[in-house]
């Protein structure tokens, strides 16, 4: 088997511990949570941090709870918990639908919300979900806590707004009434990265779209979102024609690259199809469809 290059290892017992370790070891230190993004890269020797700070003891960051008008997910929440969460199922079915097609059940037992967001892989499904929902990332350092819109959290491929001596502690998502959400993904095989995927929520006011969020995975969409399509839909009627127009806008606006998952024209086409389906199902669910 391929194995990592040597490194130092420390275990953080608290969040403050983790921050202190990050401050001490600087940019050569990496946090490791589930490890299913970082460790494979280290085995292939594509990543070679000199220090790993294990934050798996930070059980107090493992929660999914209601806090006022927001749902809050701790950064150490495992993907499996997101998949099974009744609270999330009640408000945003997009989460369970996305989680079911993220990696495989074993990876989901270990991988964390925080780890996935901070890895910032352009094909990360959860990044698109949180972007669609316009969540907020809460980041802590020794100088306190700050909040970053999820649509500003991802700076580029594998790059986030989290600084060297900072740690993502939780992600917050506003609760919305009269809302339906859905996730659509196509992959070559169960567990593969998306060829393309789309997540959406639609909030209705009667037959009008009061608010909408569209997240796109694996197609180079800026901040994993498609603002043009959202603007097109917002305040308009929740009709198939509008949905089709939004889908076309997404297909136009994204930046897919050709690879062995597919050529560019197919990926663009796929974005259009999946956005259309995610929006249609979100609208149906907002209207009370429970399927």
């Amino acid at each position, binding site marked *: *088997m391929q194995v990592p290059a040597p490194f130092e290892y420390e275990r953080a017992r608290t969040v403050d511990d983790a921050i202190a370790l990050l401050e001490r070891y600087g940019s050569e230190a990496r946090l490791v949570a589930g490890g299913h993004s970082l460790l494979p890269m280290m085995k292939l020797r594509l990543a070679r941090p000199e220090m790993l700070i294990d934050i798996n003891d930070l059980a107090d960051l493992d929660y999914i709870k209601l806090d006022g008008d927001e749902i809050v997910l701790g950064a150490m929440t495992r993907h499996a918990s997101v998949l099974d969460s009744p609270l999330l199922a009640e408000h945003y079915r997009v989460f369970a639908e996305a989680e079911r097609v993220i990696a495989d059940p074993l990876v989901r037992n270990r991988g964390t919300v925080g780890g996935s967001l901070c890895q910032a892989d352009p094909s990360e499904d959860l990044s698109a979900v949180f972007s669609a929902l316009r969540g907020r990332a809460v980041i802590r350092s020794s100088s306190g806590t700050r909040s970053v819109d999820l649509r500003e959290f991802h700076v580029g491929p594998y790059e986030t707004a989290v600084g060297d001596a900072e740690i993502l502690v939780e992600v917050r998502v506003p609760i919305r009434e009269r809302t339906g959400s859905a996730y659509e993904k196509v992959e070559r095989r*169960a567990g593969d990265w998306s060829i393309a995927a789309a997540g959406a929520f639609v909030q209705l006011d009667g037959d009008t779209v009061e608010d909408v969020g569209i997240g796109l995975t694996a197609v180079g969409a800026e901040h994993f979102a498609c603002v043009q399509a959202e603007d097109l839909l917002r305040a308009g009627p929740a009709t198939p024609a509008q949905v089709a127009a939004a889908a076309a806008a997404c297909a136009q606006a994204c930046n897919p690259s050709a690879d*062995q998952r597919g050529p560019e024209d197919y990926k663009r086409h796929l974005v259009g199809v999946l956005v259309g389906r995610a929006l249609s199902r979100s609208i149906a669910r907002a209207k009370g469809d429970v399927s």
Partner: protein
Amino acid sequence: MTATESPTADISRSPAGNPLGFGRMVRKEDARFVRGQGHYVDDVNLPNMLHSAILRSSYAHARIVSIDTSAAEAHPKVKAVITGKILEALNLAWIPTLSGDVVSVLATDKVRFQGQEVAYVVAEDEYSARDALELIEVEYEPLPVVIDAKHALDPDAAIIRDDLEGRTDNKIYDWEAGDAAACDEVFANADVVVAEDIIYPRVHPAPMETCGSVAYMDKVTGKLTIWSTTQAPHAHRTIYALVAGLPEHKIQVISPDIGGGFGNKVGIYPGYVLSIVGSIVTGVPVKWVEDRSENLMSTSFARDYHMHGEIAATKDGKILGLRVNVLADHGAFNGVAQPTKFPAGFFHIFTGSYDYPAAHCKVTAVYTNKALGGVAYACSFRITEAVYFVERMVDCLAFELKADPAELRMKNLLRPEQFPYMSPTGWEYDSGDYPRALTEAMRIAGYDELRKEQAERRAAAAQPDADPAAPLMGIGLSFFTEGVGAGPRKHMDILGLGMADGCELRVHPTGKAQLRLSVQTQGQGHETTFAQIVSHVIGLPPEDIEVIHGDTDNTPFGLGTYGSRSTPVSGAAAAVAAQRIKDKAKVIAAAALECSVDDLEWEHGRWFVKGDPTQGKTIAEIAMAAHSSLELPEGVEGHLDASVVYNPPNLTYPFGAYICVVDIDPQTGAVKVRRFIAVDDCGPRINPMIVEGQVHGGLADGIGMALMEVIAFDSDGNNLGGSFMDYLLPTSMECPSWELGETVTPSPHHPIGVKGVGESATVGSPPAVVNAVLDALQIRQADMPFTPAVVWRALQGRVLRPDLAIE
């Protein structure tokens, strides 16, 4: 989800409840596997053992300017660093392949494929060995790359094998079979001729266990012991003797438990040779186990056949002829494992299961800057390619004639009265009732209902208010004839070693037996099925028969397990040995009972006096008598043993009819396999449970190859399938619940009529899935794997070529 019942008659059971012969019984080997006590190569740990790793080329084609190993040698945990130069001094830099070519063990002049072996590190542990690889500096001078087989023979293509004297191009050979003139005549006059280009892309067997070895050269005794993942331990031993100049009686090759072979573990890889060299150099055991990317990038790939075919028929759909030109991409060395006389393996069985006189094939093999291989992944020596070709061509003909593919096949299938059947390219099919198998498959599938459903769906899709996302339903068939059990020694040898296999059966004084085999299981259940073969003949309980295999010091010579040959060849040897024991037992029984041999009758496990059943001796009793002081007739030796070398008179020909049903999302291109019906005929089934398991596994292979498995390359020669993130194997989610059926047509020439089945489903399933996909899309031809992108592009009429990078 119900298991099928074998039509084999129910027979009596042993004290442990096992059938005394053929029938369902749980496997004896499972006891260790379910406890995690399987003993695989990476589990071998010897005192003072060292570990190793191979440095591999990142270039597909480059001259080696220099290699600096000084920093690696200075690593405190490194014990040895070997390069091609060092091997040259030992005359081991190049070794023969199984096809009369030579291959680098460590590159000396050039590297010729990405992933080729360049240097070897032996260290105290595997982590240090990997660290040391990074300390080796290699200077390369990149050369132009030959990737597309279609351009390998261009006048300006770089010459890959300039190590071979007189080489002026990248051609390996031209080979043909059949009658070109007869074909010309038939094709010129036929009502219908359909021509098509079909690629069977490069795929990989990818067993769950990668390849590896532990080698120990004991300097004191002069004995080399090598544990390795080999499907053919005796062949390896002989080749090591020939290549390394080591005395063969001082070489012991041990195949412990093997985590899947599928033809990946037939050849001798540089890593095995290097572990031997490592042990010679360091004086202690050296372990080498490859990682998954090494397995996918450098070990025996499979297929890579580019075929141009033509099928001729009457306008009523009677096939008149089939011909094909094949461009075979062998990679940078010709390393195919196949009988010497058959450079293209058994591909010329491409005429398939149908009755027509005119056939011709021409195979042109070329070198490219890719890893070596071609014959692997349960191909039965290129029969996967042959069956894929003919079954696709028959469907192309059906498409042109707008004929039902099942009807077209039924019209052309060979009839039972035609067997034994001599095919236009010289294969004598031993037995078969093909229409019965196809009828049975159609019955299980409910074929007519499926076509009705498809017609209804198509009618609905043609309506103006049709749902654009409504799935496209496809039904695909495949009918295959396999040729397995290589083979008669006058026709079949590998590197000069005839493909006859030995077997030894000993019955101990207390009536328990040991059967020593030359073949090597990698999961097929030989420890159980071979015990059942012996039990079938002499009536000893299977639990009283120990099967011994995988150790060249303790088993007779043979060519190993691949090409589904264990049951046809070694199984025959075991049956013949058991028969000899039974016959000798009769003589000894007569001596013990003081009667004439002609007075004795057999009931399962026992010789008794005709008309006086209380006067008899069981095999166990006879065994004790044979070892006692009982006086034996003139010329009859004591003990109860038999030793056989079985030279099969012919191959055996299992066959089957498969039907696949798919539903395709027309907007995304995603394919879902709804059902897969497989009717197999492998003759009588020794253990129906094990036969079904073999079929299940092969059917999953078909899903894999048809929908997701491919090793593609970009124009720089980068291997795009070098990890399990890129080379996708089917999971439990893509596989339906397989629906199996059977017919039983014994082989007339095999002692117990059995034919072998290990590769049948891998051979027969890919065309069934592909035919189903193309049926759904109503397109005549596109190449697998049918990932969603490939499906969508096919629907757009802009087909993607699977073996190249997608741009």
